[in-house]
């Protein structure tokens, strides 16, 4: 399964939720849109494994951080749109803080002052 190309990076464990939530802060989006958005905003570096995107979306839905709704796209197709809930917005902030602390800590380890 590991067919990642050299210039692409594997997602760090636990970061997918943060990326999805962050992407949804721009507005409601369907699964495919989320994956495209992450890919573009990471300049094609981060490719989400679709095998884990949908489980993650459904998990977030169950946790109450996003809610889903079936809507019609501009191409007249039925698609499931995900949207951040209030709890989700709080969660984005929490995850961002956690991420900041993590990168800071890792940075200190790599470049001890």
């Amino acid at each position, binding site marked *: 399964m590991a067919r990642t190309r050299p210039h692409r990076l594997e997602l760090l464990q636990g970061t997918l939720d943060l990326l999805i939530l962050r992407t949804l802060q721009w507005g409601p989006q369907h*699964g495919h849109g989320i994956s495209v958005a992450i890919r573009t905003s990471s300049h094609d570096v981060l490719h989400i494994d*679709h095998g884990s995107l949908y489980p993650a979306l459904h998990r977030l839905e169950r946790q109450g951080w996003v809610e889903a709704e079936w809507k019609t796209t501009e191409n007249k197709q039925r698609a499931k749109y995900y949207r951040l809930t209030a709890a989700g917005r709080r969660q984005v902030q929490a995850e961002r803080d956690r991420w900041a602390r993590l990168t800071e800590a890792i940075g200190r380890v790599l470049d001890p002052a």
Partner: protein
Amino acid sequence: MTWRRPWTPLRRLLLWRAQEDLDLDDELAFHLAEETRLRIDRGASPADAARGARLAFGNVTVAKEATRGVWVSGAMERLRQDLRSGVRIVTNAPVLLLSAVTLVALVIGGNTTVYSIAHAILSKPAPGIPADNLTTLSWVRDDGFVEPETTYANYLDLAAHSRSLGPMLAQQYLRVALGHENGSYGLWAAAVSTNYFQTLRVPIPLGRSFTEDENQSATSGLVVVISDRAWREYFAAASSVIGAAVLVNGMPGTIIGVTAPDFRGTQLAPSVDVWVPIVPFARATNGAPLSGRGTEAELPFVGSFVGVLAQVRRDASLTQARAELTTLWQRLQAQYGTVPQNRSVLLLPYAATAGGNGPLSTQGTTFLAIFSVITVLTLMIVCANVANLLLGRATVRQRELALRQSLGASRIRIVRMLLAEGLVIAVLACVAAYIFARWMSSVVAGLVTPMVPPAVAQVITLPDWTVAGYALMLALGSMVFFTLAPAARAWKQPLLPWLKAGEQGVAPGRSRLSSGLVVLQLALAVLLITSAGLASRSIVLFATTDLGFDSRSILLATVNTGGGAADPQASATLLERLRVRLQAVPGIEGVSYSWSGQRANVRADALGAGAVGDSLVTNVNYIGPDYLRVYGVMPLAGRELGFEDGHAITPAVVTQRLAQRLWPGQPAIGRRLFVGPQRQREAEIVGVAPDVYFNGNRLNGNPQTGNVYVLLPSSQGLRDPGERTLSLRYQGRLDVVAPAISRAIRNEDPRVPLVRLRTYEAELEADFWPVRALMTLLTMFALMSLIVAVVGQYAVIAFDMRRRVREFGVRIALGASSRQILTAVLTEGFRLTAFGLAIGFGLSVLTGAGLSRALYGITPTDPLTYGSVLLLLSVISLAACSLPAVRASRVNPISTLRQE
């Protein structure tokens, strides 16, 4: 499984996750379509775009599974999934499900029925009584026999001195004649202490209950409380009944109260209609006051022997009351020589004694204990059968289970799946068992209704949560039991052989235990069927046995002479007056009466050669005039008996065979015989009657002695007034004759109630009820056990056959014919049948001795019955084995061997 396809929409509809599944499919399909569109926009050809989209997405099924995995993360979700996989057994293995449910339902239903009846009789109060805090006193003899009564004097003493018991009542059950201006009725009465209704806390909705003064002999006559039923039936439910004048056994009384509708006394049977205060009733009957002490033989019957119930005080426990009563009783024993020394007092909760506080209530717990053991045993046998069925299924599914396990299902998960299947079976079985138990209770209630008062039938058929809980407990317990075996197998199953080569692996060796169980069940079934067969054969024989007379146009009328006669002599004269009066009724051809004496020793006189001292036991009946004529038989020699008053020596009639036995080859007329162990009564033979079953009682004892009689005149066997039965030969229509009879009795003496009027045939039928009930019950249980045994046999043989499919394949490939395979499997099955039959017949012969008392006209080893059972069981077990045998013989060697 092509036939599962039509189920799919239905399953979608029924199962919880269907909509979410569909949504997920749509969501992923949309993703792929969107990706494809994106790639086409970027300039790829549609085919390349679709392919690229798929490649980029990866495995759709895995993604779906992973997403579903999110749904079922919680324990509840897993449980729901387990249940769903359990429910699949309904569509995947309907035959197995049906057999398993039938088995479990039969055994649980049967057990529940017996348990609910036992529970009803052993632990429910009679209707209308709030049972809490009530206790029943009994007396246990040294030999273990339980006396439900003590003397009235002992009752008074205990009631006066007990501190732990509150109000204490005394009661004596009696048959009485209740007469008033509308007619006279023979009823059950209770002569009671005046605190009876207060002690039981039973309301008197109309009128009042007894006062304490009324326990003293009242000059104004008896006060009487009657049942709601008697009030409606005999007094047209008129409120003017209070204060109405009645006669109780000819003694004047006044009705002062009517009980609540459901209250009919403290016992389930008999149901009481009349309550009178015991002291004045006994004084009026015996002509002497009560409460005198004396040995039991000296005391008059009425009023002297009473059952005792009491309230336990709120501040005392039953244990305390027991201790206190034991002390009081021992003091009585020390004080009076007339108090039996070999008895101890016993206090039981009243609810346990409503079925009678004799042996039944005290041995009830023992009975329940034995019954529980039997229940557990039968349940285990049945569970073993179901386990066998499930094992057979597990063998077939071994590959599937191995695959699931290798795909990552944990062992616990697989065991949970098996348990879920068990749960489905258990739940369905529980529902089926409940329906079955309800049905069976109504059958049993229907069986006992002609014999017992409605109160008993009522408590039997009442739905009961204790019983339902009991059934549920049995079902769940058995579920665990019968899923254990397949679960254990799944637990230790090695995966590789199953994955490598189909059904190549061989299930562990055949179980001696399961074969043994099948033999045991077959034996049990044989025992029950044989017993049922013997009972039904006896019914057939009974129905075809010649009574010696034509019973079709005989009526039996039971009257209570107590209403019109005060002593034995008056009772006898009254009966004779009734006979003469009834003879004048149009449509009546002859009237007589009789009561049976004890069976007695009879000796011939010493005149005849060779007949000296030959003592025989025969039936002795005291009969009225015209007895033989009423039964439609003529004396073979000599004459009939008349009223026969004032003879110096008692005249007697004997039946033919007895005469030949006593005086072989000589005329019997004019000879003497002696009746009784000490030759108390000497009689002279005046007539010889044909051999006739006068009592119609072809059951009691064997048919060889049932028609051997010494008939003595009624005037020689006087008895206290009470219930007597007249026999009447009639012609014409019963609905004309019957009212004429009751009119004639009323005209002769309005104080004499006609207690029962029925045809002789109906009486015979009632006599035969125990055997019929026994047969019905035995047949029901026999059928049940037969089904259980046969399904069990099928399960074992089918399991064995599945295990050996490869062996059969090889044998067929090597040239064995289907017939040979068929024979091999059938032989195996029949070996079990043969063992079962042998053991079952052995058991039948052993238990037959106990059954012989209920049998008529056949020995317990009746060859015809045994032959039929042999045939029946052979045919049925042949059928059970032939299905797997045929399947074995049709094994396709190529398909079984190809998987090598």
